[in-house]
């Protein structure tokens, strides 16, 4: 009998005997399902959060902020600076010949969530008419666009679904003024959908502001970025920072996801440790119920390899089953759920996705636990003193 045939025979025999230890085997499956379920859920939420932000950026757009500001919310750009930025080389033109750029004024307003009435802030952005040329992903799906000069707003689909008072025809009071919601837009579930948009000039006059927050420009091509950045950063009259839009959002998403990444790793790591002890327990007891069987095999000439493999295959397949169960439960419970995270000045409403690649992450965690959990019991099985074990019969 070759080594491979031996392995095949012992593994096959062992797998057939698992149903007799169903109770203890379930412990490994459920323990690992718990770990994988939690890991897949938190990583899934975190990754969906990151994607909602990263998907908002395009490499052929650039964000210009005041030097020293780390986000649009804390940046201010005066009118003459905005004009210089729009005239810079590398900026695309609209069919009418205007610079494809929008100087946005950003403020924020509180709204109440539909489900529990808790209030959180949503960004309200005053955008220029060219904004829709710069950001073609924004599509109006209901109602109409705001009229410049009128106090009208359009709201992102995600924000409108999550918060109350944002339906078409609703009135919103901002600074000393009533605004009417006239349209709803979609933009593929990215961060724009958690925003409220208005005409920049109208919003600025209502707030009495003379400076905008940031300028987003559409570049003539991705490669025009260096030229554009060069022109602005070497201009002595300007003190601005220039970033590709996708880099800007990548930075924002890193800020947002580092914390949850830490939570996922910590919680998942601790749970995996717990599941590891459970797996060791189960596999040790599986080996001890097989003592006579293993000793008999060794006595009639089977090598240690087959026995070790059979223990490892058992623990790995139980781990795999647990991973599938855990990921399945996470998928059933959370996939497609709308998650709403917020603070005083901005909120992000996004869809949570449990993707096949997350399943891969879950399986990897499970297999590590299964492997370590099977290794020590397998070691014991291989070193079992045959004579003493047989005497136990």
């Amino acid at each position, binding site marked *: 009998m070759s080594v491979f045939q031996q392995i095949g025979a012992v593994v096959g025999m062992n797998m057939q005997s698992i149903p007799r230890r169903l109770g203890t085997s379930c412990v490994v499956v459920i323990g690992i399902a718990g770990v994988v379920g939690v890991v897949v859920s938190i990583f899934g939420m975190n990754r969906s959060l990151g994607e909602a932000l990263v998907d908002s950026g395009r490499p052929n757009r650039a964000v210009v902020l005041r030097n020293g500001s780390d986000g649009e919310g804390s940046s201010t750009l005066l009118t003459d600076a905005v004009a210089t930025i729009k005239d810079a080389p590398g900026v695309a033109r609209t069919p009418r010949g205007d610079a494809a750029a929008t100087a946005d004024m950003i403020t924020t307003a*509180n709204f109440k969530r539909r489900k529990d009435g808790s209030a959180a*802030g949503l960004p309200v952005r005053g955008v220029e008419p060219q904004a829709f040329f710069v950001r073609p992903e924004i599509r109006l799906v209901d109602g109409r666009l705001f009229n410049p000069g009128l106090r009208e707003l359009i709201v992102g689909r995600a924000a409108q679904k999550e918060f109350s008072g944002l339906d078409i025809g609703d009135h919103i009071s901002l600074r000393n003024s009533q605004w009417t919601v006239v349209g709803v837009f979609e933009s593929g579930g990215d961060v724009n959908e958690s925003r409220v948009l208005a005409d920049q000039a109208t919003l600025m006059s209502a707030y009495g502001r003379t400076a905008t927050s940031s300028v987003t420009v559409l570049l003539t091509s991705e490669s025009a970025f260096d030229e554009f950045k060069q022109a602005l950063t070497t201009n002595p009259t300007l003190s601005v920072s220039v970033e590709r839009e996708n880099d800007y959002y990548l930075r924002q998403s890193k800020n947002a996801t580092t914390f949850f990444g*830490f939570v996922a790793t910590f919680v998942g790591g601790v*749970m995996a440790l*717990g599941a590891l002890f459970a797996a060791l*327990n189960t596999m040790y007891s599986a080996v001890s119920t097989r003592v006579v069987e293993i000793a008999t095999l060794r006595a009639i000439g089977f090598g240690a390899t087959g026995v070790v493999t059979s223990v490892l295959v058992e623990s790995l397949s139980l781990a795999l089953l647990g991973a599938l169960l855990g990921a399945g439960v996470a998928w059933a419970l959370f996939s497609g759920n709308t*998650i709403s*995270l917020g603070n*005083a000045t901005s909120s992000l409403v996004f869809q949570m996705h449990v993707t096949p690649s997350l399943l891969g992450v879950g399986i990897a965690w499970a297999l590590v636990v299964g492997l370590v959990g099977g290794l020590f019991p397998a070691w014991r099985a291989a070193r079992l003193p045959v004579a003493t074990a047989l005497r136990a019969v």
Partner: protein
Amino acid sequence: MKYLPLVWAGLWRKPVRSILTLLSVIVAFVLFGVMHGVTAAIDDIINTMSDTRLRIQSKVSIAEPLPIAYLARIESVKGVEGVGYYAWFGGYYQDPRNQISTGAVDVDRLHAMFPELELKDEYAAAMRTTRNGALIGRDLAAARGWKIGDKIPLKSTVYMRKDRAPDWDFEIVGIYGFGDGKVPTNELWFNYAYFDEARTFGNGTVSLYFAKIADPSRSGPISESIDQLFANSTFETQTLNERDWLRGRIAQIGDMQFFVNAIIAAVLFTLLILTGNTMMQSVRERIPELAVLKTYGFSNGAIMSLVFGEALLLCVGAAGIGVGIAAGLSPMIYREIGAGGISFPLSVVVAGIAVSAVVAILSSLPPARRVQTLNVVDALAGR
């Protein structure tokens, strides 16, 4: 109590299994302690917040300013004993990543609002006489190594100076502490008058007001009369006592609480299965031994209490160790979530022990039933 040695011996019958079970329960309770510890600590903070101090901010958003002219009008509201204010500055030191919580205030007013503020009279006096004077918190002083007399240039992410100077220069004239050390003291405060005169825009506005009231039961009506003062004006207000304000702020985060609860539930469910299985396994293997005890005259009740006792000892002991480890880890974790300085709530220890006792009892129910229906003759015969 006299059965304790017997329970102890039962536990060490299979040492590897007991130790592994012990470890997995410990790990589960470390997680329970950490996660529950965070939420319980937040509840603790909410409950220690003042209900005699009101926060008045813009109704539209915290980022919206309020006119400084509101000061006198709020002071005139019946029931209000004093008013202070705070103007957000958005300061950073050298690099935008080095953000420092910076506020323009009237220190004397602020001190009157927060009696728990530890501030030497000489520091308060120095603030009055030094136009660009600044007070820094103990934590901030320790973190940056700043001391009294240092000149600190800060930049603002938002505000520019009329004289076009790139930096806002402050001279540190004092260091403040805060009551019991639970609140992080990492802010820099400077004179509002200096700030308002030098900035290019936003002049004559503040970010929020504090108002002190004598009677906490009147915080609702007083808040309402303040908001009514400014209703339908350009800058409408929203007034809440500090406790309700913090509660609202935590609710802003949204779906986080749900995740925490779901994880705790998953951990405890998994734990119940694990421990339950171990207990059943251990009783199953010992059926003949238990039958021997029965023939010696041990009652069903005594044997069942042995089974329960073993589970309780294992679970509650492990839970104690686990929650203890969580308590040890908590200062680091609280710092990570920005709530440094608070202590690990005792309620988590109590909850951990209660939960572990429930897990122990639930998981030993099936084996205990088995003992009850045990037929001695069959068991001794190995049937």
